[in-house]
């Protein structure tokens, strides 16, 4: 390998993608059925972003139904079909359908593929100095399984019964019996298609996880010892293990529920189940609780699958932009390992209301409180890193900085939910919704934005526009908070998470108010708009915030696509003056990634080393070499 690498160093002016001794590939094989980890990473990223946007659109329709129940939906109302939206008014069925699909799409088709699969695929092999993933073909297979699963999930909207309707958790017995009677073929119902697509998506994740873990363990370059691996790689390793071990029980749940629906078994159906005044034609004797155990055994590690890539990304963006080493790199590694382990023994805190018994509840309360310790360690390390740094506030850093308090709010509001007696009141209220959206939306998604702004120059060779970046960041931050903070206030007042009319049908019980809801009412009054001063009035605030958030994403989309051709060109391969291995590659990295054999000489975050000439000493810099030589070497 080194022999070819030396040869490459002499070829200064060639396109890296084409000079590796194999013939030019056609567009189809280069960009569609590629086995190159970078192309697959981009495929994952773009697909996931489309899914995210679609999931966001579903949520906006739901928010309209909440804020203005019974009023026809503007623009899109007629497209939704007379069956689901008679006269353009969102029906409860449609609301349920969109709710279930919003959750499913965001979690399984949006964040996991974007955070883990896209960033992981692109960055991990670069950061450990590998030329590709360990199993490139398998990598392509996992993308295409994911793609097929995702498309099937979307096509289920066009089934005669509509898509799945019972929430992203898909609890039995409802999930088994809904869309069961009165259909021609049980297989062609949204609810069944949900299960089938989940089996595709889970298989994709499993193959991906095998690939990631093998790559990280076996393909590290020379000198890349365990503790020299950046935190990003460590977090991806733990995430890989979580996916590997937590997803199979969900696959079991999906297979068993599929049996229940298609073959009429009763795994999750109790004896004597009655629907529409009729005894169902089932044997009974199953257990709905079994489904919840199988689901949440995945479900909780899944939460960390959503958040760890985010923390990992922030842990790369922050040290680079504060010019200081990551504070407590080793501590963070140990914390993330503990976190990964503990995440397997906390699942039943989602099930306090099922009457598991106080002993089981107590056990899960203890483990749940324990798991906050490593999470807090991770966040604290990132916070302390900021202390005394000379911070460069580019857009990536703004998002990374915003991530810290947002994730903090999300995490801390979870603490009360860990306790059984508090959870009895807050379960299934908007408080829970507010809590986990703070973790995932302004938390994970902000971190992923930071990652996109940070690595964009490496991927395309151009910077994203900083001006548009700021127009993207500040409104997003404001609207995110206006959207999710009132949820907690409403939730504590008892608002249930699945009201399609936002609580209008329960006006007598939702007529509480506080300074916040009164304030919003007064504020709206300034503009001559009448808003209830009770909690229900907050619905319109949140809905407008949601739509505002949508508008705030427009500059990002423009930025993302126009910067490919119109952004400011990078002048060297390491434009942020970062220290990790991915900046040692040409821009954009060609097939095979590195122009010479990559070697890791030191720890990943050597910024502002005392006595060094520059404020950064990259991992790939040989002892005694000067940074400038290294920088200009690969410049074209």
């Amino acid at each position: 390998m080194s022999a070819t690498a030396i040869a490459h160093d002499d070829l200064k002016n060639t396109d890296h993608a084409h000079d590796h001794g194999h013939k030019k590939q056609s567009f189809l094989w280069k960009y569609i059925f590629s086995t190159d980890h970078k192309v697959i990473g981009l495929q994952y990223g773009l697909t996931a972003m489309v899914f995210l946007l679609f999931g966001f659109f579903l949520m906006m329709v739901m928010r309209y139904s909440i804020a203005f129940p019974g009023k026809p939906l503007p623009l899109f109302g007629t497209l939704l079909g007379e069956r689901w939206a008679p006269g353009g008014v969102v029906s409860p069925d449609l609301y349920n359908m969109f709710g279930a699909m919003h959750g499913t799409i965001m979690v399984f088709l949006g964040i996991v593929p974007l955070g883990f699969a896209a960033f992981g695929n692109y960055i991990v092999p670069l950061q450990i100095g590998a030329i590709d993933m360990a199993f490139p073909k398998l990598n392509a297979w996992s993308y295409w399984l994911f793609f097929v699963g995702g498309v099937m999930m979307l096509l289920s909207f066009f089934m005669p019964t509509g898509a799945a309707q019972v929430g992203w958790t898909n609890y039995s017995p409802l999930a088994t019996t809904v869309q069961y009677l009165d259909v021609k073929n049980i297989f062609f119902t949204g609810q069944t298609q949900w299960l089938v697509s989940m089996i595709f998506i889970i298989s994709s994740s499993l193959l991906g996880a095998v690939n990631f873990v093998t790559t990280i363990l076996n393909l590290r370059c020379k000198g890349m010892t365990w503790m020299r691996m950046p935190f990003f790689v460590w977090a991806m390793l733990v995430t890989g293990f979580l996916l590997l071990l937590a997803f199979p029980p969900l696959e079991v749940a999906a297979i068993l529920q599929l049996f229940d629906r298609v073959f009429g078994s009763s795994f999750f159906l109790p004896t004597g189940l009655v629907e529409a005044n009729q005894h169902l034609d089932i044997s009974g004797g199953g257990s709905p609780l079994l489904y919840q155990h199988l689901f949440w055994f995945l479900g909780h590690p899944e939460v960390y699958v959503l958040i760890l890539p985010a923390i990992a990304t922030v842990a790369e963006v922050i040290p680079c932009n504060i010019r200081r080493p990551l504070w407590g790199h080793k501590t963070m590694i140990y914390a993330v390992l503990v976190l990964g382990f503990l995440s397997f023994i906390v699942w039943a805190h989602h099930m306090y209301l099922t009457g598991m018994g106080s002993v089981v509840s107590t056990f899960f309360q203890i483990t749940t409180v324990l798991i906050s310790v490593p999470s807090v360690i991770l966040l604290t390390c990132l916070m302390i890193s900021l202390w005394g740094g000379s911070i460069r506030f580019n857009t990536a850093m703004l998002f990374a900085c915003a991530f810290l308090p947002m994730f903090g709010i999300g995490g801390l509001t979870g603490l009360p939910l860990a306790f059984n007696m508090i959870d009895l009141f807050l379960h299934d209220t908007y408080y829970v919704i507010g809590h986990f959206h703070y973790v995932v939306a302004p938390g994970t998604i902000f971190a992923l934005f930071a990652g996109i702004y940070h690595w964009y120059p490496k991927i395309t060779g151009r910077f994203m526009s900083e001006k548009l970046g700021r127009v993207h960041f500040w409104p997003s931050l404001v609207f995110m908070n206006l959207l999710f903070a009132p949820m907690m206030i409403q939730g504590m007042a008892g608002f249930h998470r699945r009201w399609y009319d936002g609580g209008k049908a329960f006006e007598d019980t939702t007529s509480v108010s506080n300074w916040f809801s009164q304030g919003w009412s007064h504020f709206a009054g300034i503009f001559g708009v009448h808003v209830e001063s009770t909690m229900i009035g907050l619905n319109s605030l949140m809905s407008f915030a949601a739509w505002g958030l949508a508008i705030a994403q427009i500059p990002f989309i423009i930025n993302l696509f126009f910067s490919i051709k119109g952004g400011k060109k990078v002048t060297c391969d390491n434009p942020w003056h970062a220290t990790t291995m991915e900046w040692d590659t040409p821009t954009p990295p060609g097939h095979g990634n590195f122009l010479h054999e990559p070697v890791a000489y030191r720890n990943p975050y050597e910024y502002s080393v005392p006595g060094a000439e520059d404020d950064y000493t990259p991992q790939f810099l040989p002892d005694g070499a000067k940074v400038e030589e290294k920088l200009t070497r690969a410049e074209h």
Partner: protein
Amino acid sequence: MEIPYTVKARPDTGLWNAKMGIWLFLASEVMLFGGLFSAYIFLRIGADYPWPVHVLNPWYGFINTLVLIFSSITVLQAWLALKMRKWGMYQIWMVLTIACAGAFMCIKTVEYNDKFHHYGVQLNDGSVLEGHLVNNEYLVKFGEVKTVTLATRLNAKGMLGINLVNPASDAGFLKYLVEGKPEFKDESGNIVTLDSSVVAKLLAEATKNKKPTVKLTAVVPLKFNIEPARLAAYDKGKAAFRDGTEIEGKLEDDTMRLLVDKVDLRRLIPTQEENLGKAVADVNDADAWKVLGPEWKEKYLKHYKEESGKFAKEHDKQVPLKNGDFVREAFTMEISLHENGATAHQVKPEINEKETHKAAESPQHMAPTHAAEGGGHHDHPEIAIEKKDIHFYSNFTPKYNNYFAIYFALTGLHGLHVIGGAIVLSYFLFFGKKMFKENPEHLANRVETGGLFWHFVDLVWIFLFPLLYLM
């Protein structure tokens, strides 16, 4: 530029990539089957009905265990042959391995087939009769059918007006027509002969006119024999198919005819019951005797006395109802005409050739005609059970109870693993020659990877066998 460690092991991890990959994959497989085994435990502990034990023939399972263990040895030998670079030996051992996979699946097919033809019927009070359907069929018979209503399902126009699957009536119901031609008068008096294209045309017209249904009148009254699974609902004068089609006529017969081979009364006894006398009194009034007749009740009481006498002799200190084995022996009874010396009353139902052929495939299912010829003890009385007496019935598929459900889930998933493994090993066998010549070590590594998976599949079966057949 090539990915390192595809053939040679990385020194610090000691593994080449595929070996590490397969071990990680097996870890996730452990979680998959672990989840299923946990589900088994959960369901068995939580069962509110007598969990079936000893219902499978352990010999099938035992032979399959031997087959799989043997194949684990042969796959190892195949790998060894490659390590010694002996292509011929490798081929022989690999063929043996794949043949074992085939044998395993054949035995499995026989076992599955048994279960598809064996039915259990739970009567309203909970007593269960098991046996085979006469002619292997249970049909709902409608006669004098004059009106057929096709449904357009106008209201099913979904999102963006697109439906990927046609929700409206199709011509599927015509399959069950047994007497008369499908000639109908439509609403304007024209005579149409229905087939799938005509149905589609009629429905398209009705949809255009925004009519929810198309009503057709038969020229001559028709007769339908319908599989109950195709029906969404039916009563005395009407049957609604799952696709929305409705026929109106007269329900002529929905009686189930069963060749009973076992009666099971355990569901009649409350779970916490300890008073044996009360349990026997409950069983005395079982609905099963109304269907089977008093003759069988007497035989059963005799059987019960024998069993309880035996039990009292062996374990006089135990509470009988707390002993699962006793409950199973005493409150169930095999029903066979021959054993009870009642061959004179044997009913010989008609069996057409096709059914006889089917029956011959499944060793447990011996149709009475066979039994009479062979003088075996599988001749069972035929009984008629009215629909109103049936609480629930099914063949021994996942629907019947959670034991069969988890049985099919576990063995089905295991079977898919066997097939998958066999496909991969066949690939190494038939397309491995080139790689053997170029890089035999790489092929040996591949076979090692496949072999590891194969051993795992074997291991899963070694857990499955005692769990499903013996415990």
